[in-house]
């Protein structure tokens, strides 16, 4: 498959993302912010960085880039879009995702490994994970505190659109160990149609054991699986899919890392009986869907 990696003048995770795709064994193409052509990408990555300097608000100017028009269309047609760090901020500014990213509660930049609990495997980006499991993924941001009004937060929870929450290494709620003070410990969310993911942590930085971990590859493998199963999502191929195409259709054999008997229906609002992970408003709430082992303790994720 082909990943399209957006490049704004201040983007710096572009090459890191290309490296992760290389590790995945697939190809990527850089998409210059002034261009509109997505070059047939099956998934668009909006990487980390400072897009246009981000002096006014992170991502504020980037959303007006010509490239973002195409990304909007692509997303509306069901194409997979993942915004990482600054990419998440741009997606929020572009209203592809609700809420906003504000200054870390510490008022300081933070670069460190965080532990993310996978809140749902029912997205094209997490289908290779098990709900409730904990991934070690680094963050690197000064403005990553997710905020939204209570209605939006409730809706995100009710629709199981919180993909990741910051937790402690054992999977318990982050509490005061939150790296940025995000509301309900939200680290990543998907849109209603589940084909757009925004997350502050950098999965591309956890792509190789020699650099300290490979958990981030679970996301890239999930995307690969989703795309391979569904064919391409490029709007030129499925122009009629606007607003309806689920991003992670399919079922059946998921790689050996997937949980048994899990399927990924990914239709708008999840209807299964699920544990409302944010019932306590702190993003705690337990190990995830019944029947899945939650809070797996990670080995080998020693902090520095």
């Amino acid at each position, binding site marked *: 498959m082909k990943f399209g990696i957006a490049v704004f003048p201040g983007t710096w995770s572009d090459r890191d993302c290309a490296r992760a795709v290389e590790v995945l064994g697939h190809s990527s193409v850089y998409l210059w912010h002034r261009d509109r052509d997505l070059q047939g990408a099956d998934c668009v990555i909006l990487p980390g960085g400072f897009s*246009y300097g981000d*002096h006014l608000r992170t991502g504020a100017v980037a959303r*007006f880039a010509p490239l973002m028009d195409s990304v909007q269309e692509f997303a509306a047609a069901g194409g997979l879009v993942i915004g990482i760090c600054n990419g998440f901020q741009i997606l929020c500014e572009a209203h592809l995702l609700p809420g906003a990213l504000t200054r870390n509660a510490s008022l300081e930049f933070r670069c460190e490994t965080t532990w993310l609990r996978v809140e749902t495997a029912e997205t094209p980006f997490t289908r290779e994970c098990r709900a409730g499991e904990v991934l070690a993924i680094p963050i690197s941001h000064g403005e990553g505190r997710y905020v939204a009004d209570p209605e939006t937060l409730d809706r995100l929870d009710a629709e199981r659109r919180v993909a990741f929450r910051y937790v402690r290494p054992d999977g318990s709620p982050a509490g005061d160990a939150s790296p940025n003070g995000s509301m309900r410990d939200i680290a990543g969310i998907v849109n209603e149609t589940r084909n757009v993911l925004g997350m502050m942590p950098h999965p591309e930085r956890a792509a190789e054991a020699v650099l300290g971990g490979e958990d981030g590859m679970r996301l890239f493998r999930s995307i690969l699986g989703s795309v391979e199963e569904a064919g391409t999502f490029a709007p030129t191929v499925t122009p009629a899919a606007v607003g309806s195409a689920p991003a992670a259709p399919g079922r059946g054999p998921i790689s050996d890392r997937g949980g048994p008997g899990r399927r990924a229906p990914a239709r708008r609002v999840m209807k299964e009986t699920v544990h409302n992970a944010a019932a306590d408003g702190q993003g705690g709430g337990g190990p995830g869907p019944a029947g899945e082992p939650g809070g797996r303790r990670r080995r080998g994720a020693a902090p520095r």
Partner: protein
Amino acid sequence: MRFLAEVVVSLKPVVNDPQGLTVRAGLHQLGFTEVSDVRVGKHISLEMEADTEEGARRRVTEMCEKLLRNPVIEDYAIQLRVLEPR
């Protein structure tokens, strides 16, 4: 008396203002080409008690000199308004 003091802290005119330059570039990109110069500053509003407007101004000036602005690179401007008593 209750006052509302509004303090605007901005970089001195001669100091390079990358934020202003970047915002200007963004505006130009969106077609607001009539904008020739942009300076970005901080807006701080303070509610306070003072006997007179002069006294309030003196105190706010002191706050600016001591804390609110960085004298090496920043200027400040103060606006005062009398607030209705609570």
